[in-house]
Structure formats: structure tokens, C-alpha cells
């Protein structure tokens, strides 16, 4: 959690870090390889040299009788070798020294030298002695009659110093390389990311009233053109929402203007001269109607706003669908009869819904159907429930119908098919139907044919 909540690294920092990491891995592997191969070359040369010397000494020792003078000559030759000084000591089988080169006394027989082995298994051992010099030491047993033990020491102080210097230089070069690659990485990252800063500057420049300004994806590198496309899509959605909001405000103002105008006008005219009590009552009554209308608009808008924020608690229950249809019909019965319209309920089954909200949905739809159906018409409520628990309710009339162009906007707030009929209702009935169906996770579909009638299908999901 804490990792997630921490601010993520900047991309520049990430790129720089990764470049430094890869540069340091590459540089240190190269340096390590160079150092190691040099050290290996030295070690191999030294070993070959020592083995060769031992073989030389052995060949002298094999001559019978042993020519100690020649041996001393052989040993002495090592003193001015360019490889470095080397010393040797020849001992008999019991380990007593027979002959040794001067200076060998600094290298005691047993303490520093490795165990004597056969020449093929001979290993050099590196030792540093008290005067600061470093030697490679080797002990070889010569299985001749009589046996000898040859100890040989090669001064490699020079090589060790050389390698140490080489190592120091390599490390220095490594750090210098890292420093340069860091600077390069920062510069490259900054340069590479500069289109981001550019696109951000472009985006910053866009305010609410220039939502139509788009970013041209062709202006940006491939990686950013997708961002530009997504950003354009977002701008379009925002522009659409803004337009809807503006339209809604305008519609709302218009809706409120009519009743307010009536109220102001009627009251002003009433006050212009004194009138009879009956006249005053009539005016007040008419005003009250307008107030009720305003109050209904406010209530409906509040309902829609709450439904949108899902603040309306849904008291869903398994309802007897037929009983609900009949209850709503009984409420509208009187009105339908007045208009000479027959109400019919069909179908059986259960559905999951909030009883009051369902009543509101059906009531709004019935009202619309009754208002748009001529005398002698019929409004039919049909319930069809499926085995999976979902259900559909059809509200069908044989009224005037709606032309196709209006259908998509039917559930918009304040949308009216016939703007001239604005006195009827709040213009929010179908918007409320849709929001209630949305709350239920259901859907509304309107199918209509001019002159034949309209069917509104309500789908309630199984839940």
C-alpha cells in the first residue's frame, strides 16, 4: 500500500537510473574482463617460466655425478632475467639444502613454500615477504635416485605493482565513464521527453469555451499520437456534456419563465384596480396552480439529480406484477373513462422492483398514453416474466404515435414532441421513467408508428 501511495518516480529519473545501471554493468564487466585476462596472462607466463626452469635444473641433476658447478651456473643465470629475479634451492630427499642461490635465505624452506609435489601437479603459491617483495613459490620433488627436492621462487613484485596500477586506472575510468553516461542519460531523457512538456502546454491552453480545439495526432511522435487521439475523444465528450448542460439550463429557464410570467402578469393586473372577492379568489386559485407547477418541476428535478447520484434508496421487493398493473390502472381509471379510453391489463408473473417507483414509472407512461390516444382508443399494459426472474412490461396505446426523429430524444429532460403543448405536465415524465429504470438496472425502449400507436417496453433484470 505504502509503495502504491508514494509519488511515482519521474520518467527522467527512471530513464537516467536505468541508463546508469546498464552503463555501470557494461563498464564494470569490461574492466573486470580486461583486468582478469591480464592477470591470467601474467600468471600463465610465470608458471611456464618456472616449470621450464625446474626442468632445466632437473636435467642438470640427472647427469651422474651431479655437477654442482654447472648447477650453480644454471641457477645464476636467473639473476638477470627480464621476467624478474628468480631464486632456487636444491635439497636432498631428507630436506637438507645442497645448494641455493644467494638471496634464497630470505625465503625459509618449510614456512612459505607449498608441499612438494610431482612436476605435473606443481602449483605456484604467491607470498609477500617482510621486505615488501612478492614471490611465486613452487616446490617439486624429483623422483630420481637419489631423490631431490627443488624449490624455486620468482620475484613478481613488478607485476603485482603493474596490476594494482592497472586496476586503479580501470576503476578511475569506470567512474569517469559513469559520470559521463549519467550526464548523457539526463540530457537524452530530457530531450526525449520534451514532446510531453509540449503536449502538456497545448492541453493547458484549452479552456471550457475552446473545447472544440483539437490536437492533431500527426503533429506528435507515434507514442504521443495515441495520447492526442484519446485527449481529443475526451474533449469531444466534455464538449457534448457542456452543450447538454447549457441546453438543460436554457430549457429550465424557459420552463420556469412561463409560470413566473403568468404569476407576475396576473398579480399585476389584479392589483391595478379593486375587484370583487370572487375575482380575487379566482386569481389566487390560478396562481396556486402555477405554484404547484413550479413545485412539481423542482421536485422532479431534485428526483432526477438524486437518481443520477444514486441517492435514492431502492427498496426492491418481489412484486406481484399483475396486482401492480391493476393498482396503477385503478388510479388512472377515472381519467381514462373521461377520455373514452379503455385500460386493459394482461399477463401474470413476478418482478423485482421498488413498488413506489414502479408505480411512478407506470403512472407517467399511462398518463402519456391516455393523453395521446383518441376517444375510443385502448391502452394496454402487458406483463411478461421470464423463467430467469427478469420481466418486461409493455405499455401499448393505439394513439397518434411519434415520428422516428423524436424517439432518441424522448427521454431527455424537457424534451417535447410538440413544443406547443408545453402546458401539459413538466416535460420530465419520461426522463424520470428512464432514471428509475436505470436505478433498477433495467431499460426503456420506445417503438412507435405514426397513426398506429406507441409501445414502451420496460425491461426489469433478474437481479
Amino acid at each position: 500500500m505504502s509503495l502504491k501511495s508514494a509519488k511515482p518516480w519521474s520518467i527522467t529519473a527512471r530513464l537516467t537510473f536505468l541508463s546508469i545501471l546498464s552503463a555501470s554493468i557494461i563498464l564494470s564487466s569490461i574492466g573486470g574482463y580486461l583486468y582478469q585476462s591480464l592477470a591470467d596472462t601474467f600468471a600463465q607466463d610465470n608458471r611456464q617460466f618456472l616449470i621450464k626452469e625446474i626442468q632445466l635444473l632437473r636435467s642438470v641433476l640427472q647427469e651422474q655425478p651431479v655437477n654442482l658447478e654447472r648447477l650453480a651456473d644454471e641457477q645464476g643465470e636467473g639473476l638477470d632475467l627480464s621476467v624478474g629475479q628468480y631464486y632456487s634451492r636444491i635439497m636432498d630427499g631428507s630436506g637438507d639444502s645442497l645448494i641455493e642461490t644467494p638471496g634464497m635465505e630470505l625465503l625459509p624452506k618449510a614456512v612459505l613454500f607449498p608441499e612438494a609435489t610431482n612436476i605435473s601437479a606443481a602449483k605456484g603459491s604467491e607470498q609477500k615477504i617482510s621486505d615488501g617483495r612478492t614471490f611465486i613459490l613452487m616446490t617439486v620433488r624429483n623422483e630420481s635416485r637419489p631423490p631431490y627436492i627443488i624449490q624455486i621462487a620468482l620475484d613478481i613484485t613488478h607485476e603485482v605493482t603493474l596490476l594494482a596500477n592497472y586496476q586503479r586506472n580501470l576503476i578511475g575510468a569506470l567512474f569517469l565513464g559513469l559520470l559521463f553516461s549519467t550526464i548523457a542519460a539526463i540530457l537524452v531523457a530530457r530531450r526525449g521527453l520534451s514532446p510531453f512538456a509540449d503536449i502538456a502546454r497545448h492541453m493547458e491552453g484549452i479552456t471550457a469555451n475552446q473545447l472544440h480545439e483539437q490536437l492533431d495526432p500527426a503533429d506528435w511522435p507515434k507514442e504521443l499520437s495515441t495520447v492526442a487521439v484519446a485527449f481529443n475523444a475526451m474533449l469531444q465528450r466534455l464538449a457534448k456534456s457542456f452543450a447538454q448542460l447549457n441546453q438543460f439550463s436554457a430549457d429550465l429557464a424557459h420552463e420556469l419563465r412561463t409560470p413566473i410570467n403568468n404569476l407576475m402578469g396576473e398579480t399585476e393586473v389584479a392589483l391595478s384596480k379593486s375587484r370583487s372577492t370572487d375575482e380575487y379568489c379566482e386569481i389566487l386559485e390560478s396562481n396556486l396552480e402555477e405554484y404547484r407547477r413550479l413545485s412539481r418541476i423542482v421536485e422532479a428535478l431534485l428526483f432526477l439529480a438524486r437518481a443520477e447520484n444514486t441517492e435514492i434508496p431502492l427498496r426492491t421487493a418481489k412484486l406481484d406484477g399483475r396486482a401492480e398493473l391493476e393498482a396503477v390502472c385503478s388510479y388512472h381509471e377515472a381519467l381514462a373513462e373521461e377520455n373514452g379510453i379503455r385500460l386493459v391489463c394482461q399477463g401474470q408473473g413476478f418482478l423485482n422492483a421498488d413498488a413506489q417507483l414502479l408505480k411512478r414509472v407506470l403512472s407517467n407512461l399511462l398518463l402519456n398514453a391516455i393523453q395521446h390516444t383518441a376517444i375510443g382508443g385502448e391502452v394496454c399494459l402487458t406483463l411478461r416474466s421470464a423463467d430467469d426472474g427478469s420481466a418486461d412490461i409493455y405499455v401499448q396505446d393505439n394513439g397518434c404515435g411519434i415520428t422516428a426523429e423524436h424517439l432518441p430524444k424522448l427521454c431527455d429532460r424537457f424534451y417535447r414532441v410538440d413544443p406547443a403543448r408545453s402546458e401539459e405536465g413538466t416535460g420530465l415524465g419520461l426522463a424520470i421513467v428512464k432514471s428509475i429504470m436505470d436505478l433498477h438496472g433495467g431499460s426503456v425502449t420506445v417503438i412507435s408508428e405514426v397513426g398506429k400507436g406507441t409501445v414502451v417496453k420496460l425491461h426489469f433484470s433478474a437481479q
Partner: protein
Amino acid sequence: MHILIIEDEKKTAAYLQKGLTEQGFTVDVSNDGEEGLLLASTVDYDLIILDVMMPLRDGWSVLQELRRSGKLTPVLFLTARDSIDDRVKGLELGADDYLVKPFAFVELLARIRSILRRGPVRQTEQLGVADLKLDSVRHKAFRNNQRLDLSPKEFALLSLFLQRPGEVLSRTLIAEQVWDVHFDSDTNIVDVAVRRLRQKIDDPFPQKLLHTVRGVGYVLEER
């Protein structure tokens, strides 16, 4: 009956006082929570009408303080806020009822009467006004001893009027009680239903019983 109105909006307080006084109540008005609380805890009122949003002290706090001091005067909340939480909060604090602005005055009157009545509405087997009689057991209605032919909903509507004779019933209340419809509908459905009922119970007879109270609702009484 002595009622206290605690409401900071002066116009509201004034028309409530006027309306309730005309209905025969004695009405005191306070325009802020502090003064209202003082009045409510010193005078024995039959009912307090309390606004929620007020300066100095809000309605909830007034009610809380009042109940803490042991006063059990019935309280009816008036408010422009009507989220479910607000409703629940008011009732939890011990309010007796809750009315959301804007409301119809008759609605308020009906609520006040039902709180003060402190009991169920008249539920007798034989209901009647003048020569209009209703037998709720046998589901029959008579006017001047003539049987009236009513549909079930018309019968329910008539019972509602007869249970509350002389009381003005708003359209909202009628829709709620008869059809269980708890939303403000855009229609004159209630008017149509009442008109049809009237055709059956009043039109054939010289004495009219079901009267329209203009712009407000309907009342059943002998005039």
C-alpha cells in the same frame, strides 16, 4: 389548542400563523432557535412546528435540548432539506412528523390534526353525514335510504371523506390514502375521481355534501 411556530423565514411564519389562527388555534411565533427553545421550555404548548435550518440554533438542536430537559411536546418538522438521512434524523430525535417545503397548507393542517388527535381516525362500522350513510362491513353506501352504486375505489374515496368529515382533504392526501400513490402526479386524476363520485352521491339530490375548496382540495360536510 396552543401552537408554537419556530421559523426564521418571516413570510412563512406569518402565513402559518394567520392560517392556523383562522383554523381556531392559538399561535405563538419565534424567529430564532434560541428564543424558540426558551419559549418551548417555559410554556406548555400542545404542538411545536419547527424549522430545521435556522440561525443561532438549528431545529435539531432545539428538539434535542427540549427532549433532554424532559419536555415531550409533540414536534412537527418543516424543512427544505428532504434527504432520507434528514428524515430519519428528525424522527430519531423524537419528532412526531416531518413535512418538506413546499407543502400544501391543508397538508400541514391534516398532519397537525392527526398529531393532536393522537389516535386512529374514526373507524366505525357506520359512517355518515346528513342522509349519506356508509356501511363499511357490508361495503354498501346509501343516500336518503337509496343504495348508491359505487366502484371499489369510489367506495374507498367516500370512506376517506366520511372518516374525516368537515376536514379539507388535499389532492396529495387523497392520492396517498386511496391509491397509495406517494408522488406528485402531473394530472387532475383526483379531481376526475371526485367529480365522478359527486355525480353519484350529490348530483341526484338537492342537498350537496361534497364541496370543493378552491385550489386546496375537497371537504365533505353539511352546509
